């Protein structure tokens, strides 16, 4: 079965510094990978995805993610963190890529805290 792992429960970074939120995956076949963000009392919001093509994927709010096949990783990055980026971030992989089914399997989440 497809799965993702987020090894850090929490990431702390100062505003203006670069941030990285880690994700590794385990899939059979080509991976379809996603990042979602959850702000307090809000629903999950799609940030970006990797399906195929360039290994560096750009998404919403200045976030980007780097797909690394050899390391089976899909780390989320941002060059300069904002206090407003503080939220819960989920990595996800699409299950059953051999069908048209869009079911996503989520990681356990990483809380990002950006300090002023």
């Amino acid at each position, binding site marked *: 079965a497809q799965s993702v792992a987020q090894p850090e429960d929490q990431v702390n970074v100062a505003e203006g510094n670069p941030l990285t939120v880690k994700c590794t995956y385990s899939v059979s076949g080509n991976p379809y990978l996603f990042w979602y963000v959850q702000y307090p009392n809000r*629903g999950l919001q799609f940030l970006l995805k990797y399906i195929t093509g360039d290994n560096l994927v750009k998404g919403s709010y200045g976030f980007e993610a780097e797909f690394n096949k050899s390391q089976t990783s899909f780390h989320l990055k941002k060059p300069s963190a904002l206090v407003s980026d503080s939220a819960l971030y989920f990595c996800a992989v699409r299950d059953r890529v051999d069908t048209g089914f*869009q079911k996503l399997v989520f990681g*356990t*989440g990483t809380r990002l805290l950006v300090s002023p």
Partner: protein
Amino acid sequence: GAGVSQSPRYKVAKRGQDVALRCDPISGHVSLFWYQQALGQGPEFLTYFQNEAQLDKSGLPSDRFFAERPEGSVSTLKIQRTQQEDSAVYLCASSLGLAGGVKAGELFFGEGSRLTVL
């Protein structure tokens, strides 16, 4: 509305009560998903609808859980004889359903229904 709407936002039930959670997806979205998110965990898949057809219910934890989408729009997740372990946030998500298209996997989530079973 513009987004996925879920109601009630908060529900407190006594153990053994039945509850019904409603999801109103984005108009025109073919696919509808229910996820369960326990405290401190990521969302876990419950069930999936394509229009009115329930194509996958493999994530439903027991036969006390039942979901329907009779007209291919609004969906209801029903939990019978609630137990304390059912306490969680229940998330509904919808999407265009274009499995291979550029929007594939881009789910639009509601704010969730937080169920507390006492």
